[in-house]
């Protein structure tokens, strides 16, 4: 059986309307906006302290409302990826 993915309490969210709108969305749903993801415009790194930090289950709850925010186009709970140094 494939290994279970390990979910974290970090999220990638696509929010239209700029950084101020991303801050509003994050605050409204109890997230902390850690800023734009690299050079990807409209993509922000959100952190939610109430999500299980390392879970084999995808989180339910607050992100459901986040997903319904009209300014949120896409979101993704972050999974830990296994990466090895070569």
């Amino acid at each position, binding site marked *: 059986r*494939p290994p279970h993915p390990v979910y*974290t309490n*970090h999220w*990638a969210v696509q929010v239209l309307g700029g950084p101020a709108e991303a801050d509003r969305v994050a605050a409204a749903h109890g997230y902390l906006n*850690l800023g734009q*993801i*690299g*050079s*990807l415009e409209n*993509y922000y*790194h959100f952190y939610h302290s109430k999500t299980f930090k390392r879970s084999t289950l995808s989180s339910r709850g607050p992100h459901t409302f986040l997903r319904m925010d009209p300014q949120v186009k896409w979101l*993704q709970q*972050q*999974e*830990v*990826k*296994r*990466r*090895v*140094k*070569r």
Partner: protein
Amino acid sequence: QAQSDPHTLNFIDPLWSNMWYMHCGPKSTRCRSDMNVQAAWNRGYTGKNVVVTILDDGIEKNHPDLAGNYDPYASYDVNGNDHDPSPRYDASNENKHGTRCAGEVAASANNSCCIVGIAYNAKIGGIRMLDGDVTDVVEAKSLGIRPNYISIYSASWGPDDDGKTVDGPGQLAKQAFEYGIKKGRQGLGSIFVWASGNGGREGDYCSCDGYTNSIYTISVSSTTESGQKPWYLEECASTLATTYSSGAFYDRKIFTTDLRHHCTDGHTGTSVSAPMVAGVIALALEANSQLTWRDVQHLLVKTCRPAHLKASDWKTNGAGHKVSHLYGFGLVDAEALVLAAKKWTAVPVQHTCVAVTDKRPRSIPLMQTLRTTALTAACANRSDQRVGYLEHVVARISISHPRRGDLQIHLISPSGTKSQLLAKRLLDHSNEGFSNWEFMTVHCWGEKAEGEWTLEIRDIPSQVRHPDRQGKLKEWSLILYGTAEHPYNTFTSHQSRSRMLELSTPVLGPPRASLSPPQAEAPEDEEDYTAPPSHGRPNTLQTSTCHPECGNKGCEGPRADQCLNCVHFSLGNAKTGRKCVSECPLGYFGDTAGRRCRRCHRGCETCKGKSPLQCLSCRPGFYHHQDMNACMTHCPAGSYAHESERTCRKCHPSCKKCADEPEKCTVCKAGFRFAQGRCNPDCEQGTYFDSEQMKCGQCHPTCKSCVGPSREECIHCAANFHFQDWKCVPDCGEGYYPEEMRGLLHKVCRRCDDSCLSCEGSSRNCSRCKTGFTQLGTSCVNHTCSNADETFCEMVKSNRLCERKLFVQFCCRTCLLAG
């Protein structure tokens, strides 16, 4: 060891002569082919002004061999979300990888420390991103750090090389790659270099690694000194180039910088090769900074060669390139690369053609080959998609299968080149199959795209399987990347771009920078505008219906373009039509004598004359040089482009070049040295540059060189001082002994064995023992036994069991006392 060759450079770096991979050649019995890095240096290319960053577990920025080239603007700590990429130190030194990779790229030359990096004058940074949870966000952030500042991103990591993983970049990381190649380096495209997998022993195949399998990354393999396949090497069709690296225990080692200011010969695997290629590409970018991300790949294809690299599948593809699944196009040749780069013309724009889409599901019969062919014109009927000459070829495949590792997939091009997209992987027993997985091959590079393509899939069970349990090819697509015309033999508009950009080469002294390129302007009529009289009647003034801008000669109608002359200015010409205006629009200035709007020099938004030196503000894409009153595409040396104001502003006096801000120097003036993000005056040995006082300060007397005045800020210790606990001390403390470290001028205090109070030469050569221990030879022991008889004691003494840790329990103090 280095051959006695008159062309060999004599660096004083202690391990320079051990860097066998820099001294190869026909005279060597083992590494007979050189990577020709020294030859590239001899032509003047050392990576100057090129910025490379290492995506890994951090970088020891104050390592003596890295500090000189370290660039904080090319660095970030994604794991810790701050600007300091220093690795996390622990007892196992697990975060040494990034520092080791960095040294290969840009360790300083001729500095009495460790090694010489391939691009020893490049700027080197580190992005700490592996020392924590690696997520799609972490990868995307790392790949998108300052894409307009960093030229080359080198990564020596990837998904597990366990022979059963299929994984690659997530959605965000893929977008980061695409953003990088489209927008990075001011539109030329970021260069991503990736180490191919190390799962050779596990039977892994690097097409199951989405990073090396991407068209945006340069996938790099390794070969041993004698050209053999290293035990760790995976083969696949996406590998582009190869360098030397470590091999078996009897092969010579690769040297580089290590944690805690050390040097090491323990750096191995394809992790060695990716930074080497990053360094070689840095040399090429110094030769031609206008190379696009695709130009770099073309250059590697053109200049790499098989040399003495041994592979059973070397073949010549339809374009005449020799290629193999182990080594790609072969061993890098730095000299050939820089020479080709210097005179390179940018290749034509990339076209993408989805040549085949086949959604017919088909069973894959056991022990047989499912073969499906497709004839394609390579989008010949779409001028914006037509692929005449191939670069990358991708087969996007969806397969369901009970045991994925039993599958083998090949793709055959119209020229007959057979690429192995997937080999059997004995350890992969997954039943997940492949879901739209993209297998990439570079083996068809340069071939013609149109014709018949064949996909072959074989199912060869490694275990007994019921014949009914078959796999199914659900759908597949063939995506061709390449150019409509031949990439080398066509004069395209990109060449004029290159030429135009050559005009922007900055020089010292009176800055002479690129003005807006000369354009043929439409000739303007010189005479004042007067409309011809209509029907022989003299011009009459129709004051009741004329436009307010019409002059004293009246008009033929109410509109501004029907005036016979103008009050203020006329705009336009006989061809385009004229009209009277109160003020001239952007791009024009008002000629009050002629009462007409005349065009500014191209690039000027507002101006006071036609000359290129009469601009007052600039159009988007140009920058205003206030001293010269000119608009230029690139600001001259000594200034930087202020984007929002579209002006050239002066750099800090110590900077020869800067970016974004006056103090963000990228190149220092003579007499200054780049360190810690700034141009600091070159301070003499024994002094350091104090950025607050803006002058050289004295190092602590215990330091030979330093980064600050205190004892803890030494880089090298003064003569007869040793390095202990980040300080230089005259003598090692109790329980420590001074040890010579290879590559360092000073000794480092190392801990003695736990039982020793003091030791000499090595940790176990005790000279005094702690309380409760007894000295026996060079060991300190505390074991006692009470049942020793003479024979037993003799046996213990004659075999010196007391001095061997495994048998120390046999040591009897009683025996000692008994002589």
